[in-house]
């Protein structure tokens, strides 16, 4: 079952869902609008390789906007910390951005129970598109799971900046030492 806007609101107030900062004006009938953080990382490596750390370049979005180019994967992050132990989070783009040909993730919409962080966005555009920091770009929805829970042991769910593919995470290895690798 997918939570309605009022159910998301109640769950945030009850502490079952983390959305921080939270603004009730950003609630939709069955989702919550998230905003685009100011920092992007552009992947430079060509070809990219899941067994090697990717070379990236940092882009700070100026207030007057920045034109994203087709053919490049940009990693961004949500302004909001999003997650929780109770409901499964799914992240998509807003239709207003889809109508401009902007992807906010690349077929990886599903979050993990137990993680709460600023989500890394995998951004690509079909045509050049000027985007702005803090604009409302996408939506998260929350889904009721069934079954026993297990602790979250992943890497990315504890990191709140745009994070490139980690070779250890790509190989399916646990989070402990990887966090240090990511911080280094």
């Amino acid at each position, binding site marked *: 079952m997918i939570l309605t806007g009022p159910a998301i609101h109640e769950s945030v107030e009850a502490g079952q869902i983390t959305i921080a900062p939270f603004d009730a004006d950003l609630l939709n009938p069955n989702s919550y609008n998230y905003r685009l953080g100011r920092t992007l990382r552009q992947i430079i490596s060509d070809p990219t390789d899941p067994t090697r750390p990717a070379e990236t370049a940092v882009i700070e979005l100026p207030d007057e906007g920045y034109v994203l180019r087709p053919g490049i994967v940009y990693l961004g992050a949500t302004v909001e910390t999003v997650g929780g132990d109770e409901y499964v989070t799914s992240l998509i783009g807003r239709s207003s951005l*889809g109508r401009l040909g*902007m*992807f906010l993730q690349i077929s990886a919409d599903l979050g993990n129970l137990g993680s709460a962080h600023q989500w890394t966005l995998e951004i690509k555009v079909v045509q050049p598109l000027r985007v702005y920091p803090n604009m409302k770009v996408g939506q998260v929805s929350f889904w009721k799971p069934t079954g026993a829970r297990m602790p979250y042991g992943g890497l990315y769910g504890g990191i709140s900046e745009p994070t490139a593919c980690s070779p250890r995470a790509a190989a399916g290895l646990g989070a402990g030492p990887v966090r240090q690798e990511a911080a280094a």
Partner: protein
Amino acid sequence: MILTGPAIAAQVKTGAIQIAPYDEQRIQPNSYDFHLGERIGWYTNKVLDCARENPFEEHAIPSEGMVLEPDRIYLASTREKIGSDFYVPIIRARSSIARLGLFVHCTADLIDIGSFGQLTLQLHAVQRVRIYPGLLVGQVTFWVPHGEIVLYEGKYQGSEGPRPSLVHRDFEAR
């Protein structure tokens, strides 16, 4: 929970799900197949801007088809008007269409409960692909909500045909 095909058919009969025109032949085991409408549009500028209205032109899709190019975002719509005040619709491509490398939305698959109209499709072709009016392009699924329902009354309500982005209104409101 996702509705099965027979559950979708039953909810169409009660009016809890609206699909018009509706054809029971298009019911699938857990979705309903929708058609591409007759109109398509695109932005006339190459570089688009979220903060400004982007000029947009609309055309009929010729009956002999038209080729979509990879470097342009095209907006079309479902032929059907689709919506529900009781279930959450989610749209996606039919796998036959995905196997041609055609996206029918750009990461915007979730429809607000209470919205009703021809859904705008965001067509992106990985390789050149020819499309035709009335093509069976996608599927809509229906999901059970949890919590009090507040119906959509947003800027795309009652859409007919492709509707360009209105995101620039967010900036005008500032």
